[in-house]
């Protein structure tokens, strides 16, 4: 424990947050440190107060006696005990103040005597309840023992429920004296709750259990522990195949320990305040004083009390941290700090009173009107026993919630009010809405359960139409559960009945549902059909749906069918292309021919798009738009993908006449940023720089400094990726300047990461370490991903610098950072690149230490990375793995060589700018790897070499497009230069080549590639 002389740490946090555990841990660490501390801990009592009670408890404890004996300070201890107990012969004639000072001196002398032997740690728990004399004595000890090895740990709650408030003043004084550091202990995140539960229960918990325990405890560790224990004791948890799983949906009641903790806090409230708070609790977790005032006036039949008066009446509850003030813009005045507090209060008032309060607030909400109050009105009407209002309002609110893309809120509303719906038609309406909401959430299993109840109700109302509707809904739910045969079977059955009965509207719906079942995808979601889909079979019901829609004027259904038929048509082209390539045709020649093949798909998609636009269905229009972009076949590389993104952007902008300029500017800035990000992470640094700069300008124009900072940082990191130090430095300064306007921990962390990367490039090991460590510090223990990213960067860069400069300290640092990375990612889900990067660093470390076997093993672990997704990290992994597996001649060496060779060929093809390309291949790690696998970039022609071919600007444009496989897309939308097959043939003749592939090679040699 490396601490300066006389220092203090304050742990601030609410009840149950874990301060006492941290104090106990500190005690253990202090006792075991070298040299060990004398450790004295004491807890202030909530109920008992008296002069020097805290220090009396400490000085008279057996541990104090034992320590004093070992430190040969028994005489000092006796004098201190006498003084604090008001005994001793020296007090006569002293004023009260002098007597107090003498007491302070004696205790300080005793403590000093202890520090002669060892450093002393004084640990105070719950200082908010300490007596004033003891608090003064702590202040005195800090002032008079400043040069002694004294460490204080003070636990305190953040709100002022101390009788004197002296504890708070002491903390403020210590802060001013600059001897203290305050650490705020926050509630646990869901991830941390999962980890705590795994430790407590010795096995992991499933998601549902985690959700339940985290929601009920709200991340307060004491509550988590107690709830977990209560769940186990109530057999609400079952260990299934090594994982704790909830067996009861509701879980047990609140444990008595939790109840007792809350009751003790509530007991400190004056009765009037407690009663008022309980009434407020009926209004909800958050409440407005104006609502409370109106409700009380209604109940009492009196004039409303002023809001400020109620606020003052609740001040005690604020002081105790039971409720917290809400921000001005939240629309509420207060919120209960924990749901269990509200529930405990509600238990203390009669059911009749609660109903009366709910009735009064429902009346007020109904009078206020407005859709934003509907869910509250439904809830309060339900609680007030007014089922009719509750049901009708819930239906309206649930419908509005779906319209606002809040399906979960819709489901909660229906679940809460469904028990109150007694009429079958009400229940059917509610179940229908719930099915709609579950459909949006893609929860097929829950849909089936919900629809089972709806099926049962069809008998009660005897409606064939309802029966058919439920069958189609079941078909849709089965599709969501990927039971496509059942889905198609149900839809076919409805279609047959509808056709027989001549019900065209129903047949249309059944055909659309059948099409989705056969395509295995909802309308608007698929861009390419899956390879195993029978396109003719899937197309038939959509074709029939189109006929009916055209005949009946069902425009939305017509658009949907057209869009899906476009996708099916594009799928047919895809299969044809695949067949040609399988038969040996050259890829780019086939792609060049694709636009003509895709004309029908394009026409269908455009028809769909125009109908959606007419209907004002932007989501449908977007889905048709993107399917059009997807229909344009380009090469399957990320460069081709970037081309598609650019294309979508162009379409998006050209088709949106109704969007305001400012909205368009914002969306354009975001689109530029997305292309920058895509290019940056897919080895297209030239495009990344260009789009990053454009994003920066666009963000600046719309005043979005956050995006400006991200763009500048992104450009800087792109420059780092090809070793351009000065440019990177300049852009980092731009990023830092923008970051000043949008300060946040995240932004600070990003800046440190960026600075660290630049320092690594410069070879400035010390600064690099500082920046990455600061980044990890900013991430803290909550943002484990940010922490892992920082440590992974530190690990690989330390390893790289360590081996190039033969610096053992850096090698050791790399090892430590890699271990920290692996520790950080342990609880994280997903396929994490940092794990591979850490293993890559460990591989380099092991090799540097001469452990070739371990180095190879770590390299193999590193190669598990998803290289297609995490390209920059993949390059780090290849570098490390190359140094071991290739250099050591391991069995995988040849395969890895091919992998590296392929990556470098890809980089060569991807980077168009010759200067950037040259710099990229000149980065030491890339150079080292290229030499290792014998990669030599194909030579490009020197200036003047292509002058023998006379090309116009249009020719160059077409050549550039051919080089990217992008020509088809441009031609088929009419946004290009009007190029067609004749233009292409003429160009090939001019170039003296016979195929598009040869034209591509020409373009690469000539440095004419798409940007």
């Amino acid at each position, binding site marked *: 424990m490396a601490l300066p002389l006389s220092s203090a740490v304050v742990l601030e946090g609410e009840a149950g947050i874990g301060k006492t555990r941290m104090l106990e841990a500190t005690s253990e660490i202090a006792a075991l440190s070298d040299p060990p501390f004398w450790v004295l801990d004491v807890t202030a009592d909530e109920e008992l107060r008296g002069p020097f009670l805290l220090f009396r408890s400490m000085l008279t404890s057996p541990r104090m006696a034992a320590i004093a004996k070992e430190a040969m300070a028994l005489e000092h201890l006796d004098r201190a005990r006498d003084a604090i107990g008001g005994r001793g012969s020296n007090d006569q004639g002293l004023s009260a103040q002098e007597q107090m000072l003498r007491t302070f001196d004696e205790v300080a002398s005793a403590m000093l005597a202890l520090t002669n032997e060892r450093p002393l740690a004084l640990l105070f728990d719950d200082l908010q309840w300490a007596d004033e004399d003891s608090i003064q004595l702590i202040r005195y000890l800090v002032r008079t023992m400043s040069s002694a090895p004294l460490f204080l740990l003070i636990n305190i709650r953040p709100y002022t429920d101390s009788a004197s408030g002296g504890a708070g003043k002491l903390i403020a004084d210590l802060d001013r004296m600059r001897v203290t550091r305050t650490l705020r202990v926050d509630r646990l995140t869901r991830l941390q709750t999962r980890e705590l539960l795994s430790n407590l229960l010795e096995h992991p918990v499933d998601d549902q259990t985690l959700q339940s325990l985290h929601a009920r405890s709200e991340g307060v560790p004491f509550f988590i522990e107690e709830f977990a224990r209560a769940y186990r004791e109530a057999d609400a948890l079952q260990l299934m195949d090594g994982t704790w799983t909830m067996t009861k949906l509701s879980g047990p009641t609140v444990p008595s320990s939790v109840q007792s903790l809350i009751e003790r806090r509530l007991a400190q409230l004056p009765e009037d305040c407690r009663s008022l708070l309980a009434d407020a609790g009926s209004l909800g977790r958050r409440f407005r004083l104006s609502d409370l005032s109106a409700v009380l006036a209604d109940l009492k039949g009196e004039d409303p009390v002023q809001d400020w008066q109620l606020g003052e009446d609740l001040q005690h509850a604020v002081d105790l941290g039971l409720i917290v003030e809400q921000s001005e813009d939240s629309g509420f005045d207060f919120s209960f700090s924990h*749901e269990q507090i509200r529930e405990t209060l509600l238990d203390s008032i009669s059911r009749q009173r609660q109903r009366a309060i709910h009735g009064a607030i429902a009346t007020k909400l109904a009078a206020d009107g407005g859709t934003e109050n509907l869910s509250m009105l439904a809830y309060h009407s339900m609680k007030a026993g007014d089922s009719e209002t509750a049901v009708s309002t819930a239906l309206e609110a649930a419908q509005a919630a779906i319209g606002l893309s809040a399906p979960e809120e819709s489901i909660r509303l229906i679940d809460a009010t469904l028990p109150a719906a007694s009429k079958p038609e009400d229940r059917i309406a509610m179940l229908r809405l719930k099915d709609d909401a579950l459909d949006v959430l893609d929860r097929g299993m829950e849909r089936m359960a919900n629809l089972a109840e709806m099926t049962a109700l069809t008998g009660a109302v005897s409606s064939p139409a309802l029966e058919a509707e439920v069958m189609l809904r079941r078909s849709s739910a089965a599709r969501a559960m990927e039971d496509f045969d059942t889905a198609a079977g149900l839809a076919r059955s409805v279609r047959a009945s509808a056709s027989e009965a001549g019900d065209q509207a129903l047949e249309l719906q059944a055909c659309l549902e059948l099409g989705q079942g056969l395509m295995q995808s909802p309308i608007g979601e698929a861009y390419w059909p899956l390879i195993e889909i029978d396109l003719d079979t899937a197309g038939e019901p959509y074709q029939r749906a189109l006929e009916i829609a055209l005949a009946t004027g069902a425009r939305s259904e017509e658009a949907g069918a057209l869009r899906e038929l476009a996708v099916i048509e594009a799928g047919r082209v895809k299969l044809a292309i695949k067949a040609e390539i399988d038969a040996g045709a050259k890829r780019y020649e086939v792609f060049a021919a694709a636009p003509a093949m895709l004309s029908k798909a394009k026409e269908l998609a455009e028809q769909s798009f125009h109908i959606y636009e007419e209907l004002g269905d932007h989501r449908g229009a977007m889905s048709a738009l993107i399917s059009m972009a997807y229909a344009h076949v380009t090469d399957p590389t990320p460069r081709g993908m970037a081309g598609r993104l650019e294309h979508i952007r162009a379409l998006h902008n050209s088709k949106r006449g109704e969007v305001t300029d400012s909205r368009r500017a914002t969306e354009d800035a975001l689109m530029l940023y997305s292309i920058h990000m895509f290019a940056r992470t897919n080895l297209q640094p030239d495009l990344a720089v260009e789009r990053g700069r454009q994003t920066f300008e666009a963000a600046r124009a719309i005043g979005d400094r956050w995006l400006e900072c991200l763009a500048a940082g992104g450009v800087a990191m792109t420059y780092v990726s090809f070793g351009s130090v000065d440019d990177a430095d300049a852009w980092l300064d731009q990023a830092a300047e923008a970051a000043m306007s949008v300060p946040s921990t995240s932004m600070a962390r990003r800046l440190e990461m960026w600075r660290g990367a630049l320092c690594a490039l410069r070879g400035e090991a010390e600064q690099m370490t500082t920046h990455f460590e600061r980044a990890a510090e900013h991430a803290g223990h909550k943002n484990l991903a940010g922490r892992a990213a920082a440590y992974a960067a530190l690990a690989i860069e330390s390893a790289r610098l360590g081996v190039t400069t033969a610096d053992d300290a850096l090698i050791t640092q790399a090892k430590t950072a890699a271990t920290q990375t692996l520790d950080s990612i342990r609880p994280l*889900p997903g396929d994490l690149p940092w794990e591979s990067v850490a293993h890559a660093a460990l591989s380099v470390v092991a090799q540097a230490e001469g452990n070739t076997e371990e180095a190879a093993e770590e390299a193999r672990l590193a190669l598990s990375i998803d290289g297609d997704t995490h390209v920059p990290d993949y390059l780090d992994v290849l570098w490390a793995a190359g140094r071991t597996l290739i250099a050591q001649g391991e069995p995988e060496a040849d395969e890895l060589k091919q992998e590296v060779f392929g990556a470098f060929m890809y980089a060569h093809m991807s980077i168009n700018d010759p200067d950037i390309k040259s710099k990229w291949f000149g980065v030491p790690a890339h150079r080292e790897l290229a030499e290792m696998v014998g990669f030599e970039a194909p030579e490009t022609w020197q200036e003047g070499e292509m002058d023998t071919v006379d090309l116009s600007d249009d020719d160059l444009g077409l050549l550039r497009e051919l080089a990217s496989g992008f020509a088809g897309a441009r031609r088929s939308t009419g946004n290009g230069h009007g190029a067609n097959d004749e233009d292409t043939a003429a160009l090939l003749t001019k170039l003296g080549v016979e195929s598009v592939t040869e034209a591509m090679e020409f373009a690469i040699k000539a440095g004419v590639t798409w940007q």
Partner: protein
Amino acid sequence: MAVRVVIDRRRCIGAGTCIVTAPSAFRWRQGDFVKPELADESTVDEDVLREVAAACPTQAIVLEDFIESMEASELGA
């Protein structure tokens, strides 16, 4: 206040920038055609999720504000 992440699969074109930017929050959805799914969005801070949303080329990542433990109590669920 926290944010809930919604992936609009109708808009998603599988560019993968969400997974590159926040690999612990997003992952490839098994059995789908290059579509992401949520791994655990609580593993990154809100600002990173905002960056993910900004970096999505079709704006298919939507962030919704919500209050984690409050909804259930207010709606009586």
